[in-house]
């Protein structure tokens, strides 16, 4: 919403602010999503490693797979900011 009396500078500043907010949300929300996903995978990974140490490398890889969501968020954030 832009008031009739709003200057061009104010519109640009508002757009920059919205972009920054969007970038923040993109990283923040994907971070929360990845955290929730990793919570379950991490507990199972610790359980499996406790029983069989040989699977540590494999379960570590599985645990960090949800990090890709954060990377998508980060890419979106960077696109918004630059």
């Amino acid at each position, binding site marked *: 919403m832009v008031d009739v009396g709003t200057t061009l500078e104010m519109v640009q500043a508002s757009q920059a602010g919205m972009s920054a907010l969007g970038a923040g949300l993109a990283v923040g929300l994907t971070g929360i999503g990845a955290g929730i996903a990793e*919570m379950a995978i991490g507990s199972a990974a610790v*359980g499996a490693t406790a029983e069989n140490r040989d699977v540590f490398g494999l379960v570590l890889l599985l645990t960090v797979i949800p990090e890709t969501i954060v990377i998508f968020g980060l890419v979106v954030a960077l696109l918004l900011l630059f």
Partner: protein
Amino acid sequence: MAEISSGLATNYIYACTRMRVRRSLLIPREDYLRMLNMSLPEITRFIGETNYRSEIDELGTSFSGINLVEEALNWNLAKEYQNILELVPGELKYFTASYLRRWDIQNVVTILRGKLQGVQPGKLKEVLIPAGRLDKVALDRLLAEESPERVVEALKGERFYPVLEKELPRAMETGSFAHLENELYKGYYARLIADATGGIKGGSIFLKYIKLEIDTRNIQNLFRLRAGRVREDVRGLMIPGGSFSVEELQRLSGLEDRDEFIDALKRQVRTAPLLNTLEAIRGKSALHEVEVALTRVQLDQMVRMSKRYPFSILPVVVYLEEKKYEVANLRALARGKEAGLPGERLQGYLVM
């Protein structure tokens, strides 16, 4: 039950994953088939290379032959069950402890029988499996008592004490602990149901397992009674609380013809695997084959249920049950080989 922490879902995932990994390490069917062609020393060496290594190594100097296998299996089972009880969280611990109480009954009845027959405490100790609430120290205390009455007295405060107190005079009079044992197990199942319906989270899933267990036990008992040609009132021998009422079971046991009995049973059953098993049982005459088939279908059903509820008490109970049958299989194999039974005959007794 406010003292039981509900905990986070992560605790459930952690514990259930550990149970699944342990389950995957149980002896597979192919290995049993290989063991059927081995001699007792070969079987001992074979299981000494699996999860039983530490027990076989530890007991190797004190025992030999069949006694070594027997002791190693008992020790391993008790150690494993106690370990699981320590690692499962919150409600799972409560239900697991509740389930493991069956070993207390088995141990107490073994001690009572041994005391009545004057068996040496040392000998008696070898057959006890301290997997329940009564640990090694508590069982040693019971073993030190002189008579069955003193043993029961020492158990004052235990859940099953009222049943013991009530039934012991009759058991002593008749010299048979069969009725006492039946009553103890009936009390155990009633208590399991009470624990499952006590409002604790996950209780309804535990109840599904209990009902399945009671149904299987009742059906097995009906087949046993038929094999033993018992035609009397069986209501006292059946476990209440399953999907069949005791009256229904009494009616089923009254059927003269075996095929008619199986047909009547099939009409009451809804699950397809059990229906197929009952149909397969029609052609089997040996009681042990019937029992093994029913046990197998119960385990399969439990595995299916544990997949439907992956983070519940079921994966824990499935592992506990399968471990119990692994130990029973290995014991049967070792005992059978000791007695010189052929592999084909032994195979029929294994739950694989």
